[in-house]
């Protein structure tokens, strides 16, 4: 699906389940997310991570509501616990349906987000591995001067900021010298379109969600 449409849909679903309390809806969302992830052949580890990371908050909130809230509602405890998992799996659904590059390109072309923002983000993503190796060098160099820097050490932060400022300057110069002007019109080698079925899927999803949320059967 087109990343912009998918992002809007995921966002809409996320907001709507925040304001309703239907366990079923959360379970359906988790199931659909898992199916989509299976379709995109997400690695096994990603499911494990999606199950484990929200475990503590989910269990925590379940116990808080079940035993320590004024109403002590079992139903609401399950709503909150499944809701946390629904958020996590919606994130998984989006992550495995697209890539950073595709999402940013779609935001530029379909959502008309300013190009400065789009390419700034892209540049920042491409800098992540460099920042990692720089931090490694800073720590090694400090060790050679007898100092052990931890990730909370102000000196590590200071040196990283110096490096990051330097990079951002270089990146801006590199982009300018390759013809980039902030928010000037550009052509696109790959034009990203929104296929008609994207709208169909979106409408069906939203209608389906309303049906579950507001059906008398719940």
């Amino acid at each position: 699906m087109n990343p912009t449409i998918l992002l809007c849909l995921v966002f809409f679903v996320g907001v709507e389940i925040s304001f309703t309390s239907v366990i079923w809806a959360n379970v359906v969302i988790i199931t659909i997310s898992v199916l989509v992830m299976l379709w995109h052949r997400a690695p096994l580890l990603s499911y494990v991570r999606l199950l484990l990371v929200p475990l503590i908050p989910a269990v925590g909130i379940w116990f808080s509501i079940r035993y320590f809230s004024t109403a002590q509602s079992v139903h609401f405890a399950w709503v909150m616990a499944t809701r946390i998992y629904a958020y996590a799996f919606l994130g998984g659904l989006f992550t495995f349906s697209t890539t950073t590059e595709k999402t940013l390109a779609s935001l530029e072309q379909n959502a008309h987000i300013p190009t400065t923002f789009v390419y700034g983000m892209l540049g920042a993503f491409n800098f992540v591995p460099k920042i990692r190796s720089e931090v490694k060098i800073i720590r090694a160099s400090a060790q050679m001067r007898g100092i052990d820097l931890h990730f909370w050490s102000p000196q590590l932060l200071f040196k990283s900021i110096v490096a990051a400022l330097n990079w951002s300057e270089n990146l801006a110069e590199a982009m300018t010298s390759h013809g980039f002007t902030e928010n000037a019109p550009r052509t696109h080698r790959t034009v990203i379109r929104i296929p008609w079925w994207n709208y169909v899927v979106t409408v069906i999803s939203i209608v389906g969600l309303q049906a579950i949320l507001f059906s008398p059967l719940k």
Partner: protein
Amino acid sequence: MSKINLNDVTFHYETTLPPVIEHQNLAFDDGTFNLLTGPSGTGKSTLLKLIVGLYPAFMGEATGTITVNDQPVVDLPASKRAQVVAMMFQNPSQQFAMETPRNELIFTLENLQVPADLMDARVNDALTFAGVTDFADRKFTSLSGGEQQKVSLAVIVALNAEVILLDEPFANIDPDARLFLLTQLTTLVKKYHKTIIVADHDLSDYEPLIDQLYIFDGERHQVHQADAGEAQTRFAAFEQRQHQPAPIALPAAELSPEFTLDSFTVSHQTPLIHDASLNIPQGKFVVLTGANGTGKSTLFDALVKLQTYTGSLQWQGQEISKLRARKYAQHVALVFQQAASQFLTITVAEEIALSLKYQQTAAWTQNRINATLASLDLSGRDDQVVYSLSEGQKKKLQVLLMLIMDVPTLLLDEPLTGLDLVSAHTILKLLRHAVTEEHHTVLMITHQLTDVSQYADYHLHLNNHQLSYEARL
């Protein structure tokens, strides 16, 4: 006809600092290959960045006008300007915004608003001309310095810029890539009538290629065009200054080793050292040489646990990959090629105080430090911010800071870069003293070989993926 004109140009990084370029008038002719030379740190990069319009947009204050095709550069929007003047930077890894060469070229052409149906042909032509086709879809992080500079050339070709500026483009690349790039640049001038300005302090191979030589005079903050006589003198002087090797001893087999390599293999983006087996002796001053990009710094990274390797690499009989980093750093330390990597505080005095606080022995007293600072011409700079020192001053301070630490084994990566001969001698004397009097081990990478043989014990050379001791330095 002149292509580029500088008219009374003055440039300051900060209005409070002395100008880098002062009242400069200069013209570069259309369709010529120009070489700009002068000592490092004088302002060659600054001049190029002014012509390409990055300064004063990104930094500094400028007066006067610079025109290309009689049009002021600053008036052109970036997408138009990039098609008139393009630039290749010194540090190849810092000039790309995208993840792969092909995407960088597409990004560039999109910025120029090239229609989508013409894009692929233009991308492929540029990739072919610059010899990038084979690695067009690999990530930049996996490309060597030479490969990255080829990509940079591909971008310039895709831009089809009339003027091409190159700022020390060969500083981090191997000799083959340098030769290839020089050949392609010559083609661009001869066949496509481009105007090229290369800033380089290394004059080798240029004499038959260039049309004009320009010299940056750091004292007067001005560039002038050398006439035929002066150019000839310059090239001859450069040839003469080329190092004349002197004999040096080979290490005896019975020396106790500090480092032992056994079937040691390391690669960083490309295969570098292959299946090397030898000893590096303890308590000696060993110089490591080799062409750019052959893997000298990567060997140092492996020696300080910043780089993985295969085979065996031992320090005093222990495998380096298995040593605890914190403990090991008290025995073996690296003087980084980028001086700024070594600094942890803000001012010169703070840096020295920090080294004094953590020094391993009391060999360096405040008096000895003061005397050494004086001999390195660094006195009276206590309150200066270390990042604002010149590159040469940073290097000198950096070496001193690591000497004060008094670590038994010191690895130095190009500590003599950008130093004048007097400072270089002072540094070499300090290192020799550390070896002879304090029984330290010193292993030093350098390109600057003048008089080094007077101080060093052995010469280790890296060539063709192999390390070997040489009888001359």
